């Protein structure tokens, strides 16, 4: 006698209990607090905010804790929360020219107004494991100096003075800035929505694609014109007031790639731009995004589309790790109904094949 398997509900309930237990880990060890995650795993928090498209450190920390440190799972948690939030309005574009800069480096000039500012970077650290971090040793307090008043000129503006770089990506007069979280994607995309998609795109995927352009798959001669990290003001227009209201400050990383360009039928020889902007401190992502942005402008600049990084439908359709992970992992779900249909087909084709084989053999024997 056969009894069909039941008890899906109990199985799920028990799996979730076990998950909660494993998440908590050893009960003798204190549970990690959100403050600790925000303060001490700050770059993980930044990545989750960027790809989760929601600037909220506490929620990102909660997501990381809930996801047991699985970054894509944390990003997913944050996105699924974000999507339910009411939309009150759109802020003004942030002005990174007015940034309170903590780090700013340019690879295109030895020195420049405002100077090179290393900031809290892993660059030039020797990647030797540091045993002192295994204990609670207090590090030294950092050096600091008062912020200079002058705003830090962007490298792109220096080149723009000479007319050697293209304009700052002006959209047509009547163009309304899109919102990929509110409207379905439509190909070909404009640069505004494409940049939005890249900004929330998977860091690893964009890194690999950016890397591929450096290795010759759509080489675009990039220079890191400038990378800056710091805080910018978020301002919003309120209909009743004739001045914008500040909502607060957020930390962002901006990368302006400067790319050599020989000119084409559509554009004169000049430097062109690739742009990257992400929440928090994430240079790798901002740089990869800038490389991909430049590669994806091939159509606009009249370049031949020959490499994956230039293929907008390919890149944008596959850059979202929440979508990708869901669809890859859905293969875990039962597919036995379709598999049954395939089993039947393969069995049938197999029988036909064998019949043909024996038929052939008999014919052969008959001929001999």
């Amino acid at each position: 006698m056969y009894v069909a398997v039941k008890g899906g509900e109990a199985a799920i309930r028990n799996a979730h209990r076990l998950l909660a237990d494993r998440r908590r880990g050893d009960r003798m060890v204190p549970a990690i607090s959100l403050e600790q995650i925000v303060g001490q795993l700050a770059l993980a928090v930044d990545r989750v905010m960027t790809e989760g498209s929601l600037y909220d450190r506490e929620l990102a920390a909660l997501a990381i804790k809930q996801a047991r440190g699985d970054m894509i799972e944390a990003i997913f948690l944050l996105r699924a929360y974000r999507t339910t939030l009411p939309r009150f309005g759109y802020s003004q574009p942030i002005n990174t020219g007015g940034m309170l800069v903590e780090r700013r480096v340019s690879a295109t000039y030895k020195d420049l107004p405002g100077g090179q500012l290393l900031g809290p970077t892993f660059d030039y650290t020797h990647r030797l494991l540091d045993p002192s971090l295994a204990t609670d040793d207090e590090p030294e307090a950092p050096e600091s100096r008062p912020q200079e008043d002058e705003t830090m000129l962007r490298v792109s503006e220096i080149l723009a003075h000479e007319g050697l770089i293209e304009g700052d990506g002006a959209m047509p007069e009547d163009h309304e800035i899109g919102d990929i979280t509110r409207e379905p994607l439509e190909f070909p995309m404009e640069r505004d929505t494409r940049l939005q998609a890249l900004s929330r795109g998977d860091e690893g995927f964009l890194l690999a694609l950016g890397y591929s352009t450096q290795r010759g798959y759509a080489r675009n001669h990039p220079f890191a014109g400038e990378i800056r990290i710091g805080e910018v003001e978020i301002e919003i227009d309120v209909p009743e007031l004739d001045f914008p209201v500040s909502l607060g400050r957020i930390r962002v990383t901006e990368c302006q790639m400067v790319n050599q360009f020989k000119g084409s039928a559509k554009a004169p020889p000049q430097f062109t731009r690739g742009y990257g902007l992400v929440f928090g401190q994430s240079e790798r992502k901002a740089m990869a995004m800038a490389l991909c942005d430049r590669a994806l402008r091939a159509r606009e600049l009249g370049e031949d589309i020959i490499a994956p990084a230039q293929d907008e439908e390919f890149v944008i359709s596959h850059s979202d790790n929440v979508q990708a992970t869901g669809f890859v992992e859905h293969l875990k779900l039962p597919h036995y109904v379709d598999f049954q249909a395939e089993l039947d087909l393969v069995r049938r084709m197999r029988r036909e094949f064998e019949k043909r084989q024996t038929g052939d053999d008999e014919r052969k024997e008959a001929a001999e």
Partner: protein
Amino acid sequence: MSTETIARYNFAYLDEQTKRMIRRAILKGIAIPGYQVPFASREMPMPYGWGTGGVQVTASVIGPGDVLKVIDQGADDTTNAVSIRAFFQKVAEIAVTTHTGEATIIQTRHRIPEKPLQEGQILVYQVPIPEPLRFLEPRETETRKMHALEEYGLMHVKLYEDIAKHGHIATTYAYPVKVEGRYVMDPSPTPKFDNPKMHMSPALQLFGAGREKRIYAIPPYTRVESLDFEDHPFEIQKFDQPCALCGGTDVYLDEVILDDRGGRMFVCSDTDHCEERREAGHTGHMSEEAAQ
């Protein structure tokens, strides 16, 4: 940091603005049967590929008077069906059932119930890849043109190549259909066994593809024809034995492996249908009654 300020969700999960957007897409889908309406799919609290499209459609349609049934592979007790049903019980506090006849809304993955649907019922399909032409042409820009121009030659060529190579069409599920003589449509990965049930169904059929951001629909009493050729007419899979539990024929069967010596049995994939038949006294050769 206080935990009350952290994370709250709306009734039925989706906010009203999102529901309006999805509802408008559903109405367009009904007005243009088989056409895939783009919609601004939201992140849902379950992964893409696990029914987010169907869940969004159901969440936008469902109301306090509805009775919901959720199936995966035809069964009410598969884990993902259990999970989605629990989601709606939690966020919308609606009545649920496993009985096809009692449900006003049935959300499904991979099957259409065996019991014929009625007027007033809504069948919501979870769709992974809504574009029937996707595996012939990966580009959205191209497939959109093909639908616009009603240029479906490529699909016929593909099916005919199957016939040339294998002697018959080698597509067993997600078998393409033509809706009301116009749009070629993907019925979602249901086995082609279920295709005929879509034709002139009294129920409203809604399709949601969350990751791919498309909604489409088949109104009740709409022509749905499986693509075929005069010399190779469409035919469904036939099982050479009845259900081992209820003795049902003309139903879709799951193959259940009983031991490691090749022992197997075939049982209804539609668990509710099978139970109803057994309650009505039907038996199969491996049912309890037969064992006694």
